């Protein structure tokens, strides 16, 4: 199953904020974490992560600083700010409302909408 790209775009922000909520990280590791968590189903082209990170940084939700990897490679590390945590909490309650609504519909209606369960 491939997840629709509009849906991927919609979850990108809460996903990145939530991953950085676990601790500071860098682009490549964030993508690796997304793949690991979604079992490879939620993927977008690697490059698109960076404009998103910069947008979130410009909005003050993230901070960024250059550091060095254990192998001596330059890396840009991102960390979530207080404003970022507030935004994450807000997104989280919105997503909870969305999934809850869908869950209720789908549990009540049985496995197939064609059966007209209600």
């Amino acid at each position: 199953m491939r997840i629709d790209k509009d849906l991927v775009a919609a979850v990108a922000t809460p996903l990145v904020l939530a991953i950085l909520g676990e601790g500071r990280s860098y682009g490549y590791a964030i993508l690796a974490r997304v793949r690991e968590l979604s079992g490879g189903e939620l993927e977008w082209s690697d490059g698109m992560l960076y404009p998103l990170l910069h947008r979130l940084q410009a909005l003050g939700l993230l901070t960024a600083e250059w550091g060095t990897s254990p192998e001596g490679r330059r890396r840009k590390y991102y960390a979530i700010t207080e404003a970022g945590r507030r935004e994450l909490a807000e997104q989280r309650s919105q997503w909870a409302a969305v999934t809850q609504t869908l869950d209720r519909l789908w549990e009540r209606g049985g496995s197939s909408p064609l059966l007209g369960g209600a």
Partner: protein
Amino acid sequence: MTGAALEARIAEWRGYVDRARAIDTAEAEELESHLRERIDELRDAGLDDDEAFLVAVGRLGAIDAISREFARTNSARLWKQLVAGAEPVERTRGSGIVSALLIGVVAAAVLQLIRLLSIGTLADDPTTTLFGRPADPTWLLRNAGLIPVAAVAAWLLVRRRPGLPIVLATVVPFVLVALAINLMPLAAPDAAGGLLSQSLLLTALHAPIACWLLVGLAYTATGWRSTARRMDLVRFTGEGFVYYVLIALGGQLLFALTAAILAPLARDAVAPLAEWGLLSLAVIAFPFAAWLVELKQSVIENIAPVLARTFTPLFAIVTVAGAAVYLALGATQPFNRELMIVFDAILVLALGLLLYNLSARSEGRATRFFDIAGLIGVIGALGLDAFVLADLVGRIGEYGWTPNRVAATGLNLLLFAVLAVAAVLSALHLAGRRPIAALERWLMGTLPAYSLWAAFVALVLPPLFGFV
């Protein structure tokens, strides 16, 4: 560890990324670091250099798409992004030069007509009547600033076709302002050709600034609430101003040469040439400059931010030195409107530098330097202003208020308030407590205030003071 061939391919790829103008160096470096990490992972999984490079580049995605996405996160870069023509944007209606020149010519013709009517009545017979009403020699002064602004607004509406509500919201207030300004019983110069009335000059000066709000509406159209669109309007205004000044300099040089050529043969032709040719071209140059900005926004680096960066450190030095001098010597002088206007100009300059530094901002060490220099400049200007303002306003009480004093003091207070909040937000940003977006929102949110104040001065002050 990595082969020379692989390094060469990465360098080639990096060169391609660097040419995408919406991606700056730090971002390109970050992308390269990502690419290398991916290549290492793929090689560990058993791919050879070539395969690893190709797969990693493929996973990263098309540079054009990434570049567009970066441009969208920072609309400043949208202005210089489309060099390679990755995405044809609004190419459907031609470049707009024909409509710009046409509107310019019509505007120039209207201005010339008004000039003939007002000069004619002034010079020959002050009691001339037109359409049964006494002709007014102040028509030219009343309309001279309004017509070029109307031309720019008209061209933007023709070019963008923003839909009927926006067109009406632009045109109707414009017509009302124009009517109000022309029907207001502002005193003409007295018979001896003496001083013009204060109110007339104030109205003539402020009406175009008030109407710039409507140009802004025509420019931002349905996006008028958006901070990013307002920022684009600021860029448009700044670039248009720079283009206009350059065109005016060139035009004057050309006119001086023409006059020098004509002088020995036909001395009498020089004055009409200035009145008809130079004045008309000065009007036509307004929509033409607007067209140039729209055409060039994607082609060259913007000029206004470069100028702002050049002058920000100098401005900081000047204001701090000025404040020091005033502190040392004290500032006790009689109220002086010229001095108030000088301080208004300093605050306008401070605001302009702040805006244009912000309009082409990218993260980096140099940016921090300019942010700090800008903040020092603003604080210096505010300190200088506060010092003098308190003194001057105190004295106005003694001498009484006039339209001129209200206009100068009100502008000063407005700019002071905007800049004071901006200074706080800028300091919080430098301290890492607030994002730069907060400063941007504040400055863009207060943008209409200047035009609204100008509208107040142009339209409300004269009746309040009995049109003196």
